[in-house]
C-alpha cells in the first residue's frame, strides 16, 4: 500500500513535469528575446502584450535587467534585441561582431522622487541635486533646499540616497545631467551607465529604486516618470537651463526633445535642454539591433515589430507618460529600420 502511494506521488510529479515540458513544444511560435533598460519596461511590456494580438505567431519576451545588461547581451548575441537609454560607446560598438543600430523608440523623463511627510512638490536646482547625491547636503532642511522651497516644511531628518546598483541608462541620463550642471560631479564621478556613487544604497532597476524610496521615509532617488506616477510618489520640479522650475510631464519632455540635435546614428543627449518649457533631465531610449540579422525568419519578424512600434505603438506611449517621437524623427527612424537586412 505504502509503496504504491510513494511511487504514485513521484510518478505523478515527474509526469506532470515532463508533460508540461513536452506539451509546450507544440505550437510553432517564434520567440524574440530582448533584454535591457528598465526605463521603458512598462511600455515595452505593453507592446509585447499588444503585439501578440497583432501577430499571434510571434512572442516577445523582454526582461528588464538594466541598460548595462542590455548592451552586453546584444554584444554577445544572447538576445535578439537589446535596450538601453545610455547610448553605446564607440568602444563597445567596436567590440560587437556586427554593426549595431540605435533605434530610438520613446522619450521619457528622469524624475527626482522622495519620501517626505505630506508628499510636497519640491523645487530643486542642479547644484542642489548634485549636492545631495555627492553627499554634501545631508539633511532635508538644509539651507540649499529650504531656500528654494519657502512654503514647505522640511523635516530635519537625514536624506537617504538611493541609486542604481546595476548598469543603467536611467543612471546615464541622470549623471549626464549632473555632469552638465556641476563641475564637481563631472570631475569626481562622471557620466556612464554605472558610476561610483559617493553616497547611498543601491537598488536594482527602476523598480528597485522606486520600491526603496517608497519604503523608506526620508529617501530620495531618481526614476523614470511612469514609475513615480504609478506608485503615486511625489517628484521635484527642476530648474532648467532657462532658469524656470519645470515639472516633468509629456509637454516638458516634448519641449526638450524638440530642441535636440539628432545625428545620423541617432545617439544624442537632451539633458539640460534650452527653452523655457523644457524639462532638464530627459532622454530617449533605444532598441539595439544588428543591421545584418543572421536569422532570416527572426529578422523579418523583428523588423515588422520595430515598424509597428514606431507607428502604431507610439500611440500607447502617452497614457504611460512616455513621449512618442515627433513625426520627422519617426520618418528617419523608419528609414533606418529599412536598412536592416535579413
Amino acid at each position, binding site marked *: 500500500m505504502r509503496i504504491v502511494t510513494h511511487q504514485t506521488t513521484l510518478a505523478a510529479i515527474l509526469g506532470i513535469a515532463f508533460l508540461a515540458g513536452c506539451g509546450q513544444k507544440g505550437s510553432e511560435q517564434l520567440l524574440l528575446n530582448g*533584454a535591457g533598460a528598465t526605463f521603458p519596461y512598462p511600455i515595452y511590456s505593453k507592446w509585447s502584450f499588444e503585439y501578440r494580438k497583432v501577430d499571434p505567431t510571434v512572442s516577445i519576451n523582454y526582461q528588464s*535587467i538594466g541598460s548595462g545588461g542590455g548592451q552586453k*547581451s546584444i554584444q554577445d548575441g*544572447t538576445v535578439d534585441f537589446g535596450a538601453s537609454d545610455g547610448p553605446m560607446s564607440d568602444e563597445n560598438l567596436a567590440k560587437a561582431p556586427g554593426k549595431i543600430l540605435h533605434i530610438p523608440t520613446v522619450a521619457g523623463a528622469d524624475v527626482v522622487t522622495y519620501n517626505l511627510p505630506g508628499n510636497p512638490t519640491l523645487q530643486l536646482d542642479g547644484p542642489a541635486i548634485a549636492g545631495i547625491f555627492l553627499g554634501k547636503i545631508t539633511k532635508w532642511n538644509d539651507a540649499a533646499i529650504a531656500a528654494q522651497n519657502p512654503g514647505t516644511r522640511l523635516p530635519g531628518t537625514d536624506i537617504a540616497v538611493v541609486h542604481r546598483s546595476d548598469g543603467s541608462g536611467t543612471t546615464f541620463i541622470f549623471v549626464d545631467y549632473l555632469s552638465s550642471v556641476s563641475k564637481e560631479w563631472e570631475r569626481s564621478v562622471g557620466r556612464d551607465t554605472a558610476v561610483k556613487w559617493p553616497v547611498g544604497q*543601491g537598488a*536594482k532597476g527602476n523598480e528597485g529604486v522606486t520600491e526603496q524610496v517608497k519604503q*523608506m521615509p526620508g529617501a530620495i532617488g531618481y526614476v523614470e516618470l511612469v514609475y513615480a506616477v504609478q506608485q503615486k510618489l511625489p517628484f521635484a520640479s527642476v530648474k532648467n537651463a532657462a532658469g524656470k522650475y519645470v515639472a516633468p510631464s509629456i509637454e516638458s519632455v516634448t519641449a526638450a526633445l524638440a530642441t535636440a540635435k539628432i545625428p545620423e546614428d541617432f545617439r544624442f543627449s537632451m539633458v539640460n535642454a534650452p527653452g523655457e518649457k523644457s524639462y532638464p533631465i530627459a532622454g530617449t531610449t533605444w532598441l539595439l539591433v544588428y543591421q545584418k540579422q543572421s536569422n532570416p525568419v527572426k529578422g523579418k519578424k523583428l523588423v515588422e515589430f520595430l515598424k509597428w512600434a514606431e507607428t502604431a505603438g507610439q500611440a500607447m506611449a502617452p497614457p504611460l507618460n512616455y513621449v512618442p517621437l515627433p513625426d520627422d524623427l519617426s520618418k528617419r527612424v523608419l528609414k533606418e529600420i529599412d536598412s536592416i537586412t535579413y
Partner: protein
Amino acid sequence: MNAAAVSGKTGSRAGLALAAPGKAGDRVFRLLTWLMAMVVLVLLALVGWTLCKGSALSLSKFGWHFFVHSNWDPVNGDYGAFWFIYCTFVSSCLALLIALPLSLGTAVYLTELAPGWVRQPAMSMIEMLAAIPSVVLGVWGIFVLVPWLREGPYPLLVKHFGFLPVLRGPTTGFCILSAAIIIAIMILPIITSIAREVFRAVPDSQREAAFALGATRWEVTRLAVLRYSVRGLFGAAMLGLGRALGETMAVTMVIGNSDKISTFLLAPGNTLASKMAAEYGETPLGLHLSALFELGLMLLLVTVATNILARLLIGAMGARQPTGTGAP
C-alpha cells in the same frame, strides 16, 4: 579462497560478491553504477576547476590586493572584495551569536525538559522551518520584518546604544543587522537539530549518576550533558556557520545592496553571496566575470572549510546527522 581475495574488494558487502566475476550483466551493472558514483567526484572537480579557471584572470590581475581592497567598478575594471568579506563575516558571526544560544536552549528543552508528547511534534515544527525556501523568508523579510525593525527596535537601539560607534547613524532597515537576523532564523533549525543529536548521544547513565548525587535539573544538564558535548556543540555551531555563509536569497532581499564601506551595523551592505546574486541579469564578461568567479571561489573555499571542520568535530561524537532540508 576467501571472498575478499576473489572479488578484490574490502567493502561492506565484499564477502557477498562471490558470484560477481564472469557474469556479463554484473560487469555492466557494476560499471554503470561505478560511473555514476564517479560523477560525484567529477562534479566536485568540475566546480573547483570552473571557479579556479574563471577567477584566473582576476587573481592574476589583482593578486592578494583583491582581499584587502574594496571596490566594485565594472566601468573602470577595478574590483576588490574586502567589504563583501567583511559583511559576510560580520553578518554570519552576528547570526551565530543570535542563533546559538536560542538553539542550545531549545535543544536542552527538547531533550531534557519537555514532556514526552511535545518532543517529536516540536522537532518536526523546527524542521519545517528548515524547509522554508529562502526566497519565501526573503519576501517576509522585506514586507514584514524590516518595516517592523525600522519602526520599533532599531530606533530604540540607536537611542540607547548610540554611543557605540557601530550603532551610530541613520538607518533604512535594510542593513547588515537585518541580514544577520534573517540568517539567524534560517540556521536555527540546523543547529538545534544537531545539538539535540549531540545531547541524545550522551548516555542516560551520566544523567542518572548526577541525579543520584542530588543535582537539580539544570545541574544535571550542565554537569552530565553539556560538559560532555562541548565538541559536538562546536561542530553544530560550525555547521550553522557554514550554512550562514552561503545564505543568498533572503540576505539579498534585506541587506540593502550597498558597496560603500561603513562600520555602522545598521548600514546597508553586501555579502559575497548577495553581491553575486545582485549581478543577476548583468551578463558579466571578461574581468567583471572573473571577479565574480573569484567571489564564488572564496565563498566555496570558506564554506567547505567550515563544513569539514564541523564534520571533524561532530564525527568525533559519533552523533547522527539530521534530516534538514533547507534551501539556501
